C-alpha cells in the first residue's frame, strides 16, 4: 500500500505541493484530478522520487522510501507522451526493464505484453513510425514489463485525440484490472478519471482538497470549486439552492451543485422560468433559463421540443444529478 504523509515539494522556496496525505490500497487505481498548475504532476514525480520532498514521507507497506532513489523504488512512471526511447525498436523498448534485470526469456514476456496492449507484431517498428495511441500502448507495456509494485501514469491519454482517448481509457482500465496493478494516474480530465480509476483525489493550488472512492467524491464534492471542476455546471446558494432542493424533494442545504442535465423541460415540472437562450446539440437542446426565485440555471430539453427565447417553461429536477455541498468558509461568492 502506498502512503503519503504531509508531503511538501518546493521549487526555490515556492511550494508546488503542500502537506499532501494520501493512501492507495493494493490493486486500486487512484486518479489525481486537478487543473493545470495544481501540483498534481509534481506530486506524481515526488512519489516516483524524481522531485526531492521538502518535508513528509512516501512509504510503501510501511517502508519509508523518501530517501530511496527512483530506480530502487519499483515504481514505474509512464509519461504524458510515452517517452519511448527513439533509438530502440518497440520490442527493445518494452524489453528494456527486463534487460536491466537480466531476466531470462525476455522475448516471450515482451510478446505477451505487446499482446496485452493489442500490438502483437509491432516489435520491430521504431517509435517514430507509430501513431500517438500506439506509442502510449507501447509505453504502457514497457512500464508493465518493469513489473512495478506501483504504476504511475502522468496524463497518459491527454496527448491523444478525443475519440481515441475514450477507447484507450476503457482499454487502460481493462489492462490495469487484468494485470492487478496498483496505479496512480494524474489527469485534468474528469471523464478520463471516471473511466479508468476507482478512487479519486482532487488537487487545487498544491493541496489535496478531497479524496475517496470515485462515486462518493462525485456525489458529494467537498466545496463549490471542486464541484465545478468535477463537471457540475453551476453552484447555487441561499434561496435558489433551497428552491431547487425543494423541487427535487431533498432536504435543506447551504449550497447545491447542479449538473447541466439536472433540470429538464417537463410540463409537470415544479419550477417555472423564462428561456434566455437555446442551443441545439445532436442529443438535446441546451437552454439557459431564468427561473423564478432561483436565477439563471442551465437546463436541457428533448430535441423535438425547441423552446424559443422568451418562452416560459416548466422544469423538472433530477435529484441524482445534484450534489449538496457543505458551505466552506473559503467559498468564493462570485461562483454562483
Amino acid at each position: 500500500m502506498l502512503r503519503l504523509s504531509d508531503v511538501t515539494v518546493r521549487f526555490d522556496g515556492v511550494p508546488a505541493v503542500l502537506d499532501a496525505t494520501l493512501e492507495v490500497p493494493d490493486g486500486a487505481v487512484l486518479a489525481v484530478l486537478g487543473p493545470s498548475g495544481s501540483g498534481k504532476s509534481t506530486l506524481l514525480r515526488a512519489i516516483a522520487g524524481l522531485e526531492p520532498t521538502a518535508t513528509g514521507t512516501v512509504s510503501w507497506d510501511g517502508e519509508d522510501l523518501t530517501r530511496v532513489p527512483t530506480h530502487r523504488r519499483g515504481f514505474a512512471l509512464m509519461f504524458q507522451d510515452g517517452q519511448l526511447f527513439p533509438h530502440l525498436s518497440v520490442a527493445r523498448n518494452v524489453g528494456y526493464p527486463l534487460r536491466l534485470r537480466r531476466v531470462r526469456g525476455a522475448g516471450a514476456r515482451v510478446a505477451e505484453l505487446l499482446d496485452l496492449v493489442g500490438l502483437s507484431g509491432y516489435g520491430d517498428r521504431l517509435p517514430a513510425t507509430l501513431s500517438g495511441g500506439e506509442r502510449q500502448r507501447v509505453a504502457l507495456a514497457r512500464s508493465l514489463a518493469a513489473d512495478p509494485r506501483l504504476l504511475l501514469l502522468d496524463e497518459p491519454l491527454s496527448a491523444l485525440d478525443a475519440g481515441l482517448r475514450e477507447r484507450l481509457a476503457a482499454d487502460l482500465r481493462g489492462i490495469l484490472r487484468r494485470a492487478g496493478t496498483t496505479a496512480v494516474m494524474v489527469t485534468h480530465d474528469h471523464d478520463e478519471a471516471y473511466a479508468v480509476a476507482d478512487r479519486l483525489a482532487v488537487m487545487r493550488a498544491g493541496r489535496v482538497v478531497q479524496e475517496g472512492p470515485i462515486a462518493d467524491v462525485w456525489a458529494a464534492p467537498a466545496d463549490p470549486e471542486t464541484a465545478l471542476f468535477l463537471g457540475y455546471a453551476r453552484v447555487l446558494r441561499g434561496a435558489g439552492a433551497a428552491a431547487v432542493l425543494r423541487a427535487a424533494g431533498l432536504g435543506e442545504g447551504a449550497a447545491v451543485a447542479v449538473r447541466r442535465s439536472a433540470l429538464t423541460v417537463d410540463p409537470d415540472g415544479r419550477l417555472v422560468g423564462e428561456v434566455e437562450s437555446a442551443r441545439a446539440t445532436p442529443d438535446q437542446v441546451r437552454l439557459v433559463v431564468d427561473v423564478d426565485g432561483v436565477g439563471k440555471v442551465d437546463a436541457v430539453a428533448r430535441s423535438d421540443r425547441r423552446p424559443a427565447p422568451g418562452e416560459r417553461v416548466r422544469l423538472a429536477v433530477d435529484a441524482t444529478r445534484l450534489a449538496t455541498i457543505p458551505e466552506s468558509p473559503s467559498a468564493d461568492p462570485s461562483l454562483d
Partner: protein
Amino acid sequence: MRRPLTLLALAALPLVVLGVFFVLPVAGMVGRGFWPDGDFDPGAVVEVLGRPRVHRVLWFTVWTSTVATAFSVLLGLPAAYALHRLAFPLRSVVRAALLVPFVLPTVVVGIAFRQLLGEAGPLGFLGLDGTPVAILAGLVFFNVAVVIRTVGAAWETLDPRPAESAAALGATPAQVFLTVTLPALRPTIVSAASVVFLFCATAFGVVLTLGGTRYASVETEIYLLTKDLLDLPAAAALSILQLVAVVVLLVVAGRLRAVPDPTVARATARPQRPRRSDVPHLAATGLLLVLVAAPIVTLVVGSLRVDGDWSLELYRALQTEGTGQALTVPATTALLNSLRIAVDATWMSLLLGLLVAFAVTRRSHSSAEHRIRGVLDGAFMLPLGVSAVTLGFGFLITLDRPPLDLRDSPLLVPLAQALVALPLVVRTLVPVLAGIDDRQRQAAASLGAGPLRTALTVDLATARLPLVAAAGFAFAVSLGEFGATSFLARADRPTLPVVIFRLIGQPGELNYGMALAASVVLAATTAAVMLAVERLRVPALGAW
C-alpha cells in the same frame, strides 16, 4: 527557376571569394607539387610518400591526434555535464574559464606549456619538456573546451524525461547514462570528437613551439618543407594527403553520427542541485580547472619575474625591439597591427559568413535546391580541414602576379584570417537561422514585407546576438592566427603571434621574457573578447 537564382546571387560573393582566395591558392600549392616544371610529373609526389621521415611524421600525427582526442572527450564529458546540468556557485565563472583555452592563440598555449614543463618550470622535474607528452597536454588543453562547449550545449537542452523514464523503470544512474543519455548524445559527441581530431591533426602553433624539429606533425612538416627546405613537391604531397585524410574523416564521422531516429526531444532542464553521485563529476571538473589554470598561471607569473623579483620590466620591454634587434618593430606596434588586421578580418568573415548562412538556411523547395545548399554548406567548411600553412603559402605563390598581385596589399593577411575564421562564423549563425520557424517569415511576407524587410524583421532580429558572438569569435581567431599569417605577414608589419614566435627563436633572456609578456597581453585580449561573448549566452559552437 527564380529561387535557385536568388540562392546563387546570395552565394555569389562568398563563392567568388572562396574560389579566388581559397581554391586558387590551395590548387596552386598542390599544382606546384604535381607540375614541378610545368610538366605533369607525379613521380616526385609518389617518391615523397615513400620517405621514412614522412611515414614517421604521419604516424606521429595520427597517434597524437587520436590520443589527444580521446583525452579531450574523457575529460570534457564530466565537465560538460557538471557545467550544464548541475547548479552550483560560480558555475558561470568556471564555465567561462574553461572555455578560454579554445581561443587562446596556439603560440601562447605552446609557450605556456614550455614555461610549465621546462627545466625551470614548476613541473620541470617531470622531465616532460620536449616530449610528445607535452604536445599531447597542449592539444588536450586547447580542445577540451570544444568538447565541453559542443556536448554541453546539447546536454543542457536534452529532455530529462527519457532518463527519468528509464530510472522509473529501474535503471541505475550508470545504466541510464549508457542506455539513454549516451545514445542521445552520441551524434554530438562524434561531432565534437571529429572536430577535435581535425584541430589536433592540423594543429600548428602548439606542435611547432613544443615539438621543435624533433617531433613534427604533417602540418609543421609542410611548414618546414616549404619555408626552410623549399621542397615544394614534398609539401604539396603532404597537403594533398592531409586534404584526403580530412575528407575521409568527415565522411566517417557522418556515418558514425547517423542514428536510427535523429530526432531528439529538446527541452531545457532546470539545473539540479548536485547529489552525492555527482561528486566524481564535480571533482573531475575541478581537476580540469587546475589543469587549465596551471600553464596560464605559470605564464603570467613568468612574465612578472625578473631575476627573482616581481617586476613589470618585461612589459615595459615590449616597447622595444628586443635584445640584438630581434624584431623589426616594437612588440607594441605588432599588437596594434594585430588589432587592425583583426578588425578587417572580422568584418570580412562576418559579411561572407552571413551571406553563406542565409543562402544555406533558406527553405528548399526542390531536392535539387536542397542538394545545392548541402554542397554550399560543406564547401565553406573546407577551410577547417585545409592546413592554414598550405593556404598561406598558396596565397604567396598564386596571388603574386597581375591581375591578382596582392603581395603588398594590406588586405592579404585579413583575407586569409577571415577564411580561417569563416567556418566558425558560419557554424555560429547557421543553427540560429535554421532554427527560425519559416512560418515567421511567411507571416511577415503575408503582411506585406519584401524579402529584405523580412530578413531584417525576422532573421536579423533573432540573429543579432549570435552575430555579435560570431564577430567576437572571428576577432579572437584572427588575433591568434599563426599558420597562414606566418607566411603572409610582411617583415615590417608583423602580428603579435608572429613576433612571439620570433622572440622565442632568438637568443637572450630578455627576448624570452618579452615573449612571455607578449603572450600574456595577447591571451588577455582574446580572453576579454571571449568572456564578453560568453556573457551574451549564445549557444555558439553548438552545432558542428
